[in-house]
């Protein structure tokens, strides 16, 4: 249900037809795979004997056991209250991912040894590059949105050319253009400023469109009412339009921030020692780059989760008026 209501209905995962279908699908799916070489098959050894020679019976038994466990799991979760459901499903998916990473046989001591440098050099660089870029991009976005909405031909033309150009070019290309192109004009900038400039300009263009659509989503009557009260442009924007537009703008902007955090890895091509650069470099000599890549992936994920939480908090703040 999109909004919680008081209409009583049986829970979907407890309806017999749904449970039966789920069971059937899982059974067929796992029969399609040969699971006889896995550790789960080892667990089933008392039932099916030597897994590798158990044949069709072995396959069926393994798939049956998995289907029973899976269905039981889903049905039981169905009984739990909402918060528990979310927590348990998160935990289970997380465990599945950990099991997946287990298959790489990562060397944990190596990760532990390199983690401090990965954080002190890599995460710090990634964070400050993205943080500065986010601030600049937001400023550009506000200016760009206002320009795109204005009736001034120059402002509109410049802003629309800007959004079109920077949304239309791959970010990597922009990094190259700014790093290699600007010196042709006599401006030699270093790798970090070049990266920040590229990220800000690219994300500024995307966010311009987000801000513009947010501002446009406010009914025209609000603007007219405000103007008729004698409010000027700035005051109308600040007190009437933006406060109403922000709840619309925040979710896609949060998306942009998360995506920028990871796109900041593109500046590694111009030799900035940020998280992704180190992830690709540190394990190179000893051929342990999978360790570093997965560690970096986890760090990126954790940083994104922080941004997600912040976004959720701000959204809650702006949705007070809609809460019951």
């Amino acid at each position, binding site marked *: 249900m999109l909004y919680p209501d008081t209409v009583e209905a049986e829970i979907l995962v407890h309806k017999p037809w749904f449970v039966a279908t789920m069971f059937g699908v899982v059974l067929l799916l796992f029969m399609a795979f040969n699971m006889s070489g896995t550790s789960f098959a080892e667990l089933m050894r008392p039932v099916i004997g030597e897994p590798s020679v158990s044949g069709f019976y072995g396959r069926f038994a393994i798939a049956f056991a998995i289907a029973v466990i899976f269905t039981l799991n889903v049905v039981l979760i169905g009984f739990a209250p909402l918060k528990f459901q979310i927590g348990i499903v998160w935990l289970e998916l997380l465990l599945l991912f950990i099991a997946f990473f287990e298959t790489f046989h990562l060397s944990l001591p190596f990760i532990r040894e390199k983690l401090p440098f990965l954080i002190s*050099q890599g995460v710090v660089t990634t964070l400050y590059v993205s943080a500065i870029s986010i601030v600049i991009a937001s400023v550009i976005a506000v200016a760009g949105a206002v320009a795109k909405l204005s009736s001034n031909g120059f402002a509109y033309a410049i802003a629309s050319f800007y959004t079109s150009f920077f949304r239309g070019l791959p970010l990597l290309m922009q990094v190259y253009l700014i790093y290699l192109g600007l*010196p042709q004009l006599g401006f030699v900038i270093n790798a970090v400023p070049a990266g920040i400039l590229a990220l800000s300009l690219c994300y500024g263009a995307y966010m311009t469109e987000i801000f513009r659509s947010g501002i446009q989503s406010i009914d025209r009557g609000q603007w007219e009412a405000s103007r008729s009260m004698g409010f000027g442009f700035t005051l109308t924007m600040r007190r009437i339009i933006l406060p109403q537009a922000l709840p619309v703008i925040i979710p896609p902007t949060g998306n942009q921030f998360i995506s920028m955090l990871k796109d900041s890895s593109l500046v590694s*091509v111009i*030799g900035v020692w940020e998280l992704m650069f180190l992830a690709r*470099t540190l394990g*190179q*000599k000893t051929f342990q*780059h999978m360790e570093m890549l997965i560690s970096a992936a986890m760090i990126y994920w954790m940083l994104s989760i922080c941004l997600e939480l912040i976004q959720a908090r701000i959204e809650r703040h702006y949705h007070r008026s809609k809460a019951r």
Partner: protein
Amino acid sequence: MTIWNRRLVTMAAAALALGAYPAHAGAVLDRVMAAGTLNVATDANWAPQSFVNASNELDGFDVDVAKAIGKHLGVKVEFITPGWDIITAGHWAGRWDMHAGSMTPTKKRAEIFDFPAVYYYTPAAVAVHKDSKAKTLADLDGKVVGATSTSTFEAYAKKDLTLDAAGAPPFEYKLNPKEVHSYENSTTAFDDLRLGDGVRLDAVVSSLPSILDAEKAGYPIKQVGDPVFYEPLAIAIERGDPELSAKIADAVKAMKADGTLSKLSEKWYGQDYSKTN
């Protein structure tokens, strides 16, 4: 001159020269000597030539050679690690003064760079998966071969290699692949090769040292056939500074004469690659 004045002058000069960056003779050398630091560009992902070591610092053969050259010039050496395509694009604009990253001097590259000195030669070889049935390079006819993008290995696989440096031994194309896949570095190519014989790749062309290194690290690969060519590898600088070029050439010559290069090569490769075999 203030920075702005200088910038205006450079801009005007750049406009006049239609984008050609002006470096008057000796300009780079003067800057290096004045600053007391030689900014060296190198790859951070090219073990054992240059890589990040256990104490998180750049290390390797190229790095040691660059440091030795710095010592000859009497300046400190600092390293910058831009991507290979950024370095080979030219227009360094004073961001770094010298490239010590095993660059092969080719005619095309000589249009952008000066190569003051060849400091060693690497045998290039072909690696296949351990399970491969290929016994000779001829067995790889019509197969899929991987190599680092824009490297000489890729050029060799595509039969587009020019080795015109002084002292480059002659070679012939012994590989007739159906398709050449480009990779960002040799490790990603080895990663595809390790998936199995012919899964994504049948063979990888790379430097013999990196193949041996990967093998030592447990990659299921092996060398097939003899080295396909000996690649001369040189220090590169931007064109237009004969003074710096002469200084670097002197330094490398001295290092060859007093055995420093041989010693460094022994240290990193276990063999003396500073001479052609």
